[in-house]
């Protein structure tokens, strides 16, 4: 299935900004489940130069600097992504979770590019509290996939979606106590849970289709950027889990970038001088393209 997406971000400042440096993760990466067929980044005012490269995780990344005074900044990322059907896995199709934890390093065990996702990261501090919460879903010898699915469902049940309860710098331990948050918090939470047992898991940022297929409910996070997690097992490689909606994404989750947590793949990262007060507006629109 093909999707067209448009992601627009507007900033406005009360005073002119003479200089603004930016680094953005807005172009969807290619992977075994999707191909980005077309992409365009439109920036106003037009920057002197836009550099495109790849970050440490292989995500496309753009740099640009605005060097003339401006009171408005708008960044529009648009393109087309083709999603592929993935083979589905049943909860018992994987080996016990302990086997994943015990894998030796290396291409025949746990490859380095997987191993890197089992450690602490800036927004995900591992703790014994996280491990305690997780263990309930991971009794000895339970198949890995069964455990991860149950953990996702528990997070969905135990934590309320509440955009006012947390902000970007709320630590995971606070989220665990508050039992509320947004997709970012739930993604970080599930990452922390899995990693606290030694299971590799990464953060995925992306988009959901705006209007659900007929007869299905609209998902939370469809009108903005969304975030979910991807966890790894030797049998299937990386499998995505969306704890905010308690689903295993099959169709309609477009991946933009992945990393250890939000800090690695923040969609728009910018530093500016001056500007006074500033405000921001974001809109995301994702629709299937009829074939």
């Amino acid at each position, binding site marked *: 299935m093909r999707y067209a997406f448009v992601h627009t971000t507007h900033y406005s400042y009360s005073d002119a900004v003479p200089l*603004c440096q930016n680094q953005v993760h807005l172009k969807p990466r290619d992977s075994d489940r999707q191909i980005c067929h077309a992409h365009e980044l439109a920036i106003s005012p037009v920057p002197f130069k836009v550099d495109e490269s790849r970050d440490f995780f292989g995500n496309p990344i753009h740099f640009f600097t605005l060097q003339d005074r401006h009171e408005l900044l708008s960044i529009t990322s648009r393109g087309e992504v083709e999603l592929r059907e993935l083979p589905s896995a049943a909860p018992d199709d994987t080996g016990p979770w302990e086997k994943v934890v015990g894998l030796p390093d290396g291409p025949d065990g746990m490859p*380095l590019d997987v191993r890197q996702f089992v450690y602490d990261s800036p927004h995900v501090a591992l703790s014994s509290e996280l491990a305690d919460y997780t263990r309930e879903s991971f009794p000895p010898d339970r198949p890995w996939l069964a455990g991860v699915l149950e953990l996702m469902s528990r997070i969905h049940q135990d934590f309320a979606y509440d955009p006012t309860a947390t902000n*970007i710098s709320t630590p995971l331990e606070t989220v665990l106590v508050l039992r509320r948050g947004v997709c*970012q918090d739930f993604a970080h939470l599930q990452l922390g849970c899995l990693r606290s047992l030694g299971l590799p898991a990464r953060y995925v940022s992306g988009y959901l289709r705006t209007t659900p297929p007929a007869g299905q409910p609209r998902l939370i996070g469809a009108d*903005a950027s969304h*975030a979910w997690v991807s966890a790894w097992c030797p049998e299937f490689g990386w499998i995505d889990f969306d704890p905010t909606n308690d689903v295993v994404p099959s169709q309609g989750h477009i991946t933009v970038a992945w990393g250890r947590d939000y800090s690695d793949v923040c969609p*728009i990262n910018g530093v500016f001088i001056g500007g006074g007060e*500033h405000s921001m507006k974001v809109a995301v629109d994702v629709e299937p393209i009829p074939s």
Partner: protein
Amino acid sequence: MNPTQLARGPLPADSLLGQYKPPAGVYDELVESDGTLRPQWREFLSLLDGLGGSELERRWDQARRLIHENGITYNVHGDPQGRDRRWELDALPLVLAHSEWSQLASGLEQRARLLNAILADLYGPQQLLAEGLLPAELVFAHPGFLRPCHGYNVPEDCHLHLYAAHLARSPEGNWWVVADRSQAAVGPGYAVENRIVISRMLPHIFHHCRVQRLAGFFIALREQLGELARRHREQPQIVLLSPGPSSMTYFEDAYLSRYLGYTLVEGEDLTVRDNRVFLKTLGGLMSVDAVLRRVMDDDCDPLELNTRSRVGVPGLVHAARSGNVVVANALGSGLVEAPALMAFLPEICRRLLGEELRVPSVRTWWCGDESSRRFVLSNLERLVVGPAFLSHTHRPVHAATLDRAERQQLAAEIEATPGRFVAQELVVRSTAPVWNDAALHPGHIALRAFVVASEDSYQLMPGALAHVSSSASNLGESLFVGHGSKDVWVLSDGPVAPVTLLQPPGTPLAPRRSGVDLPSRVADNLFWLGRHVERAEGTARLLRSVFSRLISEAAPGTMGELALLYRALCGPLSPPEGEVAGEGTVSTMELLVMEFLYDEHQPGSLQSILSGLGRVAKVVRDRISLDSWRILMRVDDDFRPKAGAVSPADVLAMLNQMILNFSAFAGVATENMTRGPGWQFLELGRRIERALILIGVLRSTLYHVSSSESAVLEALLEIADSSMTYRNRYATNLQLAPVLDLLLTDETNPRAIAFQLAALTGHVERLPRSPGEPLLSDEQRLVLAVLSAVRLADVQKLAEADEHGVRHELDALLQGGASKLRELASAVSHKYLVHAGPAHQLTEIRLG
């Protein structure tokens, strides 16, 4: 070894070696275990004996004064006042033999090469991880592994330009590396400063002992960076990036920048445009080719690294990635500071260099490795446990100092997150003689050695920074935990050729004049230095008039003018129309005025002004002459409140001295400062402030006609240092109009307001102008407006009062002048000094 040294006879009976008794079980640098002097010390000690203890003591006193006056200080961490503590130095150097040092040199050069090769691998192909020579966790869980710095070309693959090894000597006499510092090596500047002090104190001994010079090390550093920067252009611009005056190492930052001839900058002085780094100067943006950074890795770029950093340069990583600037050391080089890495160095050294590691590290076990963890847990009480990666929040603990419960707690933490811990052998340090109470005493020694990249390899500074402490624990972890330091003398095996940084080899220097390349921030600081100096002097003069009246016999009769002077002290906060505070007795007045001396929280007090002056002076330390700096240090020293009650007579003497010191400062500025933009901004600040202060005093004292008018006029002449001129012109006949002429409109009197305005006219004309500007700049208009008003004023009319005894016309003129001068100050700031302010983050995006 020099045979003539060995041939010297026995030491005299009254040798300073006398009762020197090092503790048992440690290596002593001075004497062998049987008490015989080590050969490298013979010449030194016999010359020292020749000098004698009392002469050494006398010279040492002098040297300590020099240290103080040179202001070698470091900022005590966490002191919100930003007060400095004095650098502690020991009178005796640590003497090391040539042969021993060359061995260490080859080992530390190897270690620098090794760490550099590890950085090149980990920020590149990561073969070490693929081959299992380094556990993946040591890289991927390391907070210092900066992913944005991975995978771009570092010029010449040189990550480490400057590296410091912290060393200890074992009881067997072997040197061990106990820590590696690979981001910004702290200490080489202090090593030079120590050397200067000690070699001046013992010039004869220094000369005879053939001590190797340090300058070559800095020449190598300058050539290394110059070489890389010259690939960008023939005359490259290199800057030293400092975290700023609140940093612990600011003194050294300023010192090194001066010694190396690099512009000292802070993050806000630099900006990135078109993926290039520029320095903001009075004359506009100037391209920068290389940055010697003293800022920690993560703080260097708030865009791609720590978003909360206030001391970095947004876009620096991308400028480096684009190949447009050399950053030394390369961003991310802190990775190899991890203590856990030491456990793997011997293997990695064999693999990457094909060599055996020459200088061992202190024995280290990384608990993330299972067999190491088992060893650590069963030998805990013998080991020192610390963080695996460098962490500033956890200090290593010697498990033997913990009680049972604490030790169990530690073991449980290790079990829970083993990868975060390392254990190391307890470091036993050697001892060396310390000069204390006119005798030699043993002190424990930690050594910092410095290595610089040079052509294809590295070279060790032939000298080091030693730290000394009476106890062996905690030594060497930080420069700043209150220990003393030592100069380190590495002896030469041949004649020592003099080296100096002043005339570097190579291309002849083209003559240049200081011009508009002055960083805006520096101009700003000089402007404020001028204002603070003038404010301090003005306040001291005012206080002097008050105190001389308080202690005079006629004191009770002077209450009228004292009250007016007090109002002048209260400054702009008290409107001239208001009630005069402080009516009453001389003693209540004395109490009130004392607040304007020592009360830090009293706005306008001398104490608060001097604190402000001290802060500004510190940040322009590298821009003013040593003499100017010494004068300011003296002002501060003299001012400190003495213990016990302070008598007005003491205060008066102190104020007299302070005013003399400020005159000296003004004299040095006038006679010795180049008339560049720096001087111009200092002058702008001084002239504006001097005019504002006198305006304030005149308004406070002359608004109302006073019953003690002539006493007031006399005080005014005194404050403005114009009594003598007045007496020459008008004898003892005190009247307001001629006083006003002398203090307000006389352009030949350097204390008069008109004189300041005329001087300002000249300074404002010489400010850099952009080509499109109108004929008269805003600044010129403002000065001209005040000057014309003053020139047109009729002093006779200004002296007149209305029927209520109020001098409206005078006050209006003064008030108008003051507000225009304040406008001028802010216009100058806006146009030349403030460049759009600090950086902000775009609102972080909250996802659904």
